[in-house]
């Protein structure tokens, strides 16, 4: 009942204190909810943007890479192949750009009220799940369309692999949160991060198998390629939903390890930088 809080300068690595984050879980929820509420205010199309953005992207990529460049899509219609990858990629790239700026955007809260600062990047990353869910609904429609479309030559099968999909979603969240923690904490001290983010996301897009398949990469370099955790996530999504490739086991193990290392190191880095947020921001 009578909790004593000690306030003293901390040095070196700080304890993660994830329990505090749990106590403030409602704040995570409210901040997510605020971001979603505010995002489509004063827009003509409102929440339809959550559908339009990935669909328009997919159409452009289909014309450009599926049509003009004629990249392989492993026997799956290119739109399905591409859209399956755009789902987790959208979650990841949005997390990077939103969470990267989230601390600075919430400066007034940070300098006036105590709450575990982790709440901010966590809620920012989790808010992307709503867009993910909407886009997932669109994917189902696209799959149904191609399943029944005459001449599409695509049959969707329910396989046990589909059950592993939540695990890949978790892997996507772990990667997104890990990198977001690094970027958001760095952005407090080095505002350069905000300027680098667009390039970073763009380069990342091309080193991730979104418009092409990872089978295009020679097997000699697969391990290097898998150091990008989003590679594992996206190949996992394709494997689980579309049944492409055999289980990308090696790729997955490497990607998962990297994602976990980034998350844990990100948590420690964030906690270490956190103590000066209110003074530096």
């Amino acid at each position, binding site marked *: 009942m009578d909790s004593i809080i000690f306030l003293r300068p901390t040095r070196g690595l700080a304890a993660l204190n994830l329990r505090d984050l749990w106590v403030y879980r409602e704040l995570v929820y409210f901040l997510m909810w*605020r971001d979603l509420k505010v995002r489509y205010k004063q827009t003509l199309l409102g929440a339809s943007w959550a559908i339009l953005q990935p669909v328009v992207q997919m159409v452009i990529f289909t014309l450009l890479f599926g049509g003009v460049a004629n990249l392989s899509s492993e026997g799956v219609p290119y739109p399905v192949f591409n859209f399956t990858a755009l789902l987790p990629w959208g979650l990841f790239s949005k997390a990077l750009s939103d969470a990267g700026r989230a601390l600075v955007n919430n400066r007034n809260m940070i300098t006036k009220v105590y709450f575990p600062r982790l709440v901010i990047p966590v809620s920012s990353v989790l808010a992307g799940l709503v867009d993910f869910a909407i886009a997932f609904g669109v994917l189902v429609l696209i799959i149904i369309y191609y399943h029944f479309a005459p001449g599409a030559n695509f049959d969707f099968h329910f396989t046990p692999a589909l059950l592993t999909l939540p695990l890949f979603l978790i892997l996507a969240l772990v990667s997104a949160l890990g990198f977001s923690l690094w970027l958001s904490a760095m952005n407090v001290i080095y505002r350069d991060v905000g300027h680098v983010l667009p390039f970073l996301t763009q380069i990342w897009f091309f080193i991730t198998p979104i418009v092409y398949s990872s089978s295009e990469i020679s097997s000699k370099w697969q391990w290097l390629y898998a150091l990008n955790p989003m590679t594992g996530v996206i190949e996992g999504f394709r494997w689980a939903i579309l049944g492409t490739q055999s289980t990308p086991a090696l790729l997955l193990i490497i990607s998962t390890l990297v994602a976990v290392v980034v998350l844990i190191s990100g948590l420690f880095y964030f906690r270490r930088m956190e103590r000066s947020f209110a003074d530096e921001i």
Partner: protein
Amino acid sequence: MDDIAIRVENISKSYRIGTAPERYRTLRDSITNAGRHILAARHLAARLSAGRSDLARSPDPSSHSTIWALKDVSFDVRRGQVLGIVGRNGAGKSTLLKILSRVTEPSTGQAEIHGRVGSLLEVGTGFHPELTGRENIYLNGAILGMKRVEIERKFDEIVEFSEVGQFIDTPVKRYSSGMYLRLAFAVAAHLEPEILVVDEVLAVGDAEFQRKCLGKMSDVAQAGRTVLFVSHNMSAILRLTEETLVLEKGRLAYRAATPEAVDYYMAAGFSDAGERLWQASEVPADAAPFQPLALRVRDPKGRVVDTARSTEPLSIEVEYRLDQPITGLRVGIYLLTMRGEYVFTSFDTDDPGKFEQHSTRPAGHYVSRCTLPANWLNEGRYVLSVNASAFHVKRYFWDDHALAFNVDATGAPGKHWPEPRLGPVRPALDWMIETL
């Protein structure tokens, strides 16, 4: 165990001030600094190998100076005590509250807090203009650490207190500033922590709003909760608190029962009778190019006086130097009572013609002087504040506590009755007495 709510032991907080008043580092700075360190280290190594002995010079040219916002502050607060904290701008009040509310960490020392802390360093933190009043109540409540069920339980009470009733589902960007403040304060006022830390939140809003805030604050205090209360408003401090800390330049200067502490605070630093002189080192760097030199009170014969007579006019002058021309400058004074209540505000370019004529003041040495008419102020002790600013552009200099002086009412109207008169003014009014 004991009934201590807060124990602060030798807390200090330093801030690094760089060469420029820059708010954040960029990556480039870090890289160039690192580069400089490497070069310096190489240079050092080269000199070492050359057998030179002039190693005493610092290899780091970018040595940052630090300022201590708080230095070795220690005090205890008993459970249920309402403690006031006063001090001038920059004395460290806000830093202390930020540390106690866990927004920032102390640089050295430690504090113990027994119980849940609610801090009100600002009202309406996290309010979003696009969200409705209802939505902002939930959001702001969660930010302040309230649980959802708690907010739901108090929702009607909050709405009622805020008096925004019918607009509760309107986005707050359409609210008047008064409504916005009332709603923001209403949420904060319904926070029920064991320890409440309150900064100058009452300094905003109209008189009615302030009255309401003070009322709520005294309810909180009477409910037996521990409260730390910072304010410039001495009557609020006197009304709400039993004991008060006085901070001066980051140190705890005085702690006593509130009336004594307020006297100490209001009287502190007023030894230079009738005159306040500023040394260049006392003036913050961001005041440039405005450089205050002196503030004086003079009697009609031109003598600098500590005690003015209310039956004579008295003149107040601000002497200053401009190192560069300033456009739109206004130099003015505030007159306050010892309780911290404002009597008036006046600027040297209040007259539109004068403002036109002095629209840009060239660099030079100036005096701005005004005269208060005779039979105007009541007897008592008054405080003068100085403000030099360009409206909505920049406040060059502000000293809210520059000089104090006395007014002696010998011979003033009504003096044949030996009674104190209420109010800060004692005008000689032209009364007519007629028989009807």
